[in-house]
């Protein structure tokens, strides 16, 4: 008996929707891909796979899906918890995590979602996977930190030391292992696959504790108390972590905190980028850029490199050109729904950029070694200086403040 599966594409970067092209075609289920769920001709189906983030306006469609599907699967972290687009909830955008609307929905989280886990979920077996720290080659001591760093020099030794031990915040403590495994690309985890409920506040708690030896401001209580209290002004703690919501709550803001009151720019993508520090932009672009992730990420990087005079070796330029070429192949494959071509394009992107989040790509080069490439020193990424200003390249333009945080961001698809 054939299992009928409908895959819905809600608002998002579309990467998870595209990744479902890799589902086995010789299996015993028939797949229907729904590009525009709002106009879906509702019919009874065995399994509904929901990809992308949901807005309140999507609730009628979700109701229809709930009514007609035997089982609903939330595929990708946008569907399970709002995902990276959920950061826009700080600026007033209400994002609706699917499990809040449909009790009993199966959650297959991950940014990018793993098509094989989806395949397992459709067949009724869901594997939770190892804790990330168990799968990580680095060893943690959990010693108190005197300093927090925003960047680390790639390949500078100490590859066995936990990022957190080095003052480089990694949310691996509250995450499960995933297919993309950013930590293998010298990129700390941001917990797209949470191990616990409320991963953000748990990680804030953990990292706040680790920061014990970082100077925290106190002041006299005044009045009749005559003791000390925590001060309100900026101190080394707040300066060390310029973006608390983006660092600890990158994929879970809508499920952990109320909708924020910061004025919106009117564009969800701009709202997601606003407030994020420059060193996090390449990874964020790799995660939410979808079919244009390579272009968006490289435009962000090249805009800053050009203005800051960062030298880019020829080998890096060649790899970047290959990535842009692979992105073109990926777009063509998706448009023609050619699973084999899609698989080939993603394999090439994974080989150069490390994974589909492009975690290996950074300013000046790459953060980890590319298989079968020459000496790492020839294409190694660089630590960047923070400088306020407006930067523009390709379809991307953004403005940074003195802390290196984005104040404005615009993007137009090339």
């Amino acid at each position: 008996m054939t299992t009928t599966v409908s895959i819905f594409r809600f608002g998002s970067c579309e990467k998870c929707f595209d990744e479902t092209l890799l589902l086995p075609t010789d299996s015993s289920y028939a797949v229907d891909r729904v590009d525009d769920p709002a106009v879906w001709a509702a019919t009874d189906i065995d399994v509904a796979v929901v990809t992308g983030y949901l807005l309140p306006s999507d609730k009628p469609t979700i109701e229809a899906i709930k009514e007609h599907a035997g089982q609903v699967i939330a595929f990708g972290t946008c569907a399970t918890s709002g995902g990276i687009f959920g950061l826009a909830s700080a600026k007033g955008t209400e994002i609706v995590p699917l499990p809040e609307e449909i009790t009993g929905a199966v959650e297959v989280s991950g940014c990018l979602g793993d098509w094989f886990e989806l395949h397992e979920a459709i067949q009724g077996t869901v594997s939770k996977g190892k804790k990330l720290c168990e799968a990580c080659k680095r060893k943690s001591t959990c010693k108190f930190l005197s300093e927090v760093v925003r960047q680390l020099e790639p390949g500078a030794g100490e590859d066995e030391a936990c990022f957190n031990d080095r003052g480089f915040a990694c949310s691996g403590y509250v995450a499960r292992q995933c297919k993309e495994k950013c930590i293998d690309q010298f990129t700390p985890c941001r917990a797209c696959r949470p191990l616990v409920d409320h991963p953000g506040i748990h990680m804030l708690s953990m990292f706040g504790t680790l920061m014990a030896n970082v100077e925290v401001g106190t002041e006299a209580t005044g009045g009749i108390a005559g003791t000390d209290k925590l001060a309100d002004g900026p101190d080394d703690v707040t300066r060390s972590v310029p973006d608390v919501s983006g660092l600890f709550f990158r994929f879970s803001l809508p499920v952990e905190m109320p909708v924020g009151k910061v004025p919106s720019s009117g564009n969800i993508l701009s709202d997601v980028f606003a407030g994020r520090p420059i060193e996090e932009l390449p990874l964020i672009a790799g995660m939410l850029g979808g079919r244009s992730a390579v272009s968006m990420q490289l435009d962000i990087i090249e805009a800053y490199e050009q203005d800051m005079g960062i030298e880019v070796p020829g080998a890096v330029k060649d790899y970047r050109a290959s990535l842009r070429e692979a992105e073109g192949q990926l777009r063509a494959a998706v448009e023609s729904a050619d699973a084999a071509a899609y698989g080939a394009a993603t394999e090439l992107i994974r080989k150069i950029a490390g994974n589909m989040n492009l975690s290996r790509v950074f300013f000046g080069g790459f953060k980890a070694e590319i298989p079968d490439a020459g000496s790492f020193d020839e294409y190694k990424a660089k630590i960047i200086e923070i400088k306020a200003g407006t930067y523009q390249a390709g379809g991307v333009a953004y403005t940074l403040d003195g802390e290196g945080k984005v104040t404005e961001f615009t993007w137009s698809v090339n």
Partner: protein
Amino acid sequence: MSENESKKRNVVVFACNECGQGAMNTAGVARIGYDTAIKIVPLQCSGQANPVLILEALKDGADAVGVVGCCIGACHFVNGNMLSMHRIKLMKKLFKELGYSDQQINHYTARAAEGETAVGDFEDIMVRLKRAEKEGNTLPGGW
């Protein structure tokens, strides 16, 4: 009395078993009055005042949360008070990043032998809460 003054509030105060609760007991013995909104939750150490607990309290209806521990350098569990301060500082920054007031949560210290130190902390909590309410910037609760 203005609406802001007469409003009934719920304020959760996590107090450590040493100086925090000690000062509050001393205040009681000395019959020093304080706002009836204050609801004391005893902990062994203020370092146990996990942000998860603080957020849950706010979500479940607390108007403000205070944590009272030992004086700086006098924590009976080495540095629990300082650990809590670091975490609450990050929470304050989070609240501000979302456009809310950071005055609904804070960490204080007290001296067990001086009841007025705890009562002074309570007064500061109430002043801050009323300020945040006046600005219309408090967390909505029940989100």
